[in-house]
């Protein structure tokens, strides 16, 4: 397998996880950036445990997930009721704070970074197994009472509350879930890049993920899945002279999508229509 394909695929997996992390909270009407900070936390926990204490991958992954959960739980308690945008800005604070703290932690390499992290075997398979499991969970979550509750909260919080939906705890739970997803993404990142520097976990990555999510469609989990590989992949295929304009292209895509198809390219309605037409197609076939 070419090296670039390997890195492309694993990064795609990581971005899908991060995209889902932001998506799942956004379904609840809040734009949450904690996953990027949680990613740093997860990455450093996993890196420290595997390099310094020689833990195997799986326990390190679980520890990182726990770390991510705790890390996102504390602010989530306060941010549960925050309106959408306020949360966006408030959680950017988490990114800055995490970076600053990591820079001041000498045993994690501080400013110099944490080097030579061992890599788990079969990283690609591990990544996609994780993506598949997480995707399955989200799929189930969306089709459960919680998923339907999230839809109502997104439209109108007060309606949701009169349906006995505790919007506060729902938000807290989802933020913690997003934090865990971020931590998992961080673990994969640490295993892939094998060098961690606090500056790696910054707002730049966030913009990419916003782009994948909002162009792909924020009403369904498949928008992220389909558009992350496409949007992340196409600049790598273009000749370098054009690919250098990738940021501008992303920006234009965001503007155009929001103006022409504000729900993103893949909307829930579209998936539903496809489902219905496929069903109809098979029924017609059976009849004839």
């Amino acid at each position, binding site marked *: 397998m070419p090296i670039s394909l390997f890195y492309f695929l694993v990064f795609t997996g990581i971005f899908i996880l991060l995209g889902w992390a932001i998506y799942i909270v956004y379904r609840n009407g809040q734009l949450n950036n904690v996953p990027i900070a949680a990613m740093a936390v997860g990455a450093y926990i996993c890196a420290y445990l595997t390099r310094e204490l020689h833990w195997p991958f799986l326990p390190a992954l679980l520890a990182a997930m726990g770390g991510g959960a705790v890390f996102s739980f504390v602010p989530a308690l306060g941010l549960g009721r925050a309106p959408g945008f306020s949360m966006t800005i408030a959680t950017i604070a988490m990114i*800055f704070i995490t970076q600053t703290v990591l820079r001041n932690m000498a045993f994690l390499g501080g400013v110099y970074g944490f080097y030579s992290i061992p890599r788990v075997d079969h990283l690609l398979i591990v990544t996609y197994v994780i993506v598949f499991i997480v995707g399955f969970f989200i799929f189930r979550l969306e089709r459960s009472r919680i998923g339907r509750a999230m839809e109502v909260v997104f439209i109108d919080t007060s309606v949701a509350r009169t349906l006995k939906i505790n919007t506060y705890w729902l938000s807290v739970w989802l933020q913690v879930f997003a934090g865990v997803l971020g931590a998992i993404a961080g673990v994969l990142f640490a295993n892939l890049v094998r060098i961690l520097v606090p500056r790696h976990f910054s707002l730049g990555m966030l913009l990419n993920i916003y782009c994948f999510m909002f162009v792909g469609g924020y009403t369904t989990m498949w928008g992220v899945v389909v558009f992350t590989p496409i949007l992340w992949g196409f600049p790598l295929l273009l000749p370098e002279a054009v690919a250098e304009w990738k940021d501008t292209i992303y920006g234009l895509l965001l503007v155009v999508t929001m103006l022409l198809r504000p729900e993103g390219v893949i909307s829930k309605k579209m998936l539903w229509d496809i489902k219905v037409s496929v069903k109809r197609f098979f029924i017609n076939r059976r009849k004839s």
Partner: protein
Amino acid sequence: MEFLLAQIINGLILGGIYALLVTGFNLLLLEGGVFQYAYPHLLVLSMYVSWLVLRVTGNNIFLGILAAVLSGIVLGIATEPIFRSLSKRGAAVASFIVALGIAIIITDILSRVINKGIQIAFPESLKGEKALLQFGYAIISAGQMLTILGSFVAVGGIFFILFKTKTGRAMRAMAQVPGVARLIGLPVNAMSLYSYMLAGILGGISSVFLIMALGSASSGLGNTLALKVLAVAIFAGLGNLGGGLVSALILGMAESFVMGYMRGDWANAVAFGMIMIIVMVRPRGIFGMKA
């Protein structure tokens, strides 16, 4: 004592800059229902336009300032058609994302096209670096003085238009109940254009003040300012014009004190941490949301 005074003055100057930006931002939020994240980016773009004009005309200050103001107005109005459909739908998130897209494009282009992406510096005559007042380490330069006074005048002008003129009252009525405004026969489209123009004028003037206060601009300046503006707006409560002014001063002061007295590189972390705590304790900002 001397240092305390100096830091207070530094904070006030910083706060003055934020106040200018936040007023324009809140105006758009209030009138158009648009979350104009790219507002500071447009300002920076006007600064670049002014710089280009200065270079072409051999540092003709009058033309430079004119170019900044005019380009501010043009850019302000030019964004209106983009946001119009979103604003009608009341899609605040979509408008934020569109603005994010615009911001990315502006930053990318500035970082590579104008002046080969290198920082631009404005001529001495426009900066007004000379100290006007000095008490020990506390210094107010001519440019800064003008910026502060100018911001007061500009923001005061906006408030006057909004609260004392007929058009302004109509605009505020529209901001409060958009549906009703249409019913009672206000020209909604014209009003919306008007508010963009107002924000554009403010933007143009602000870009001149930014030139005076900062003396230089880079492609990354838009992002730095945008984060701060958003922080101030949320701290105050989105769309709260008066609260925005007070909060701008509070945050400017806080930033100056963190940089002045805290160890390590905590400036950004602490400034945003404050926002985080405010959002946790008072989710709608300390002065309450208006939008």
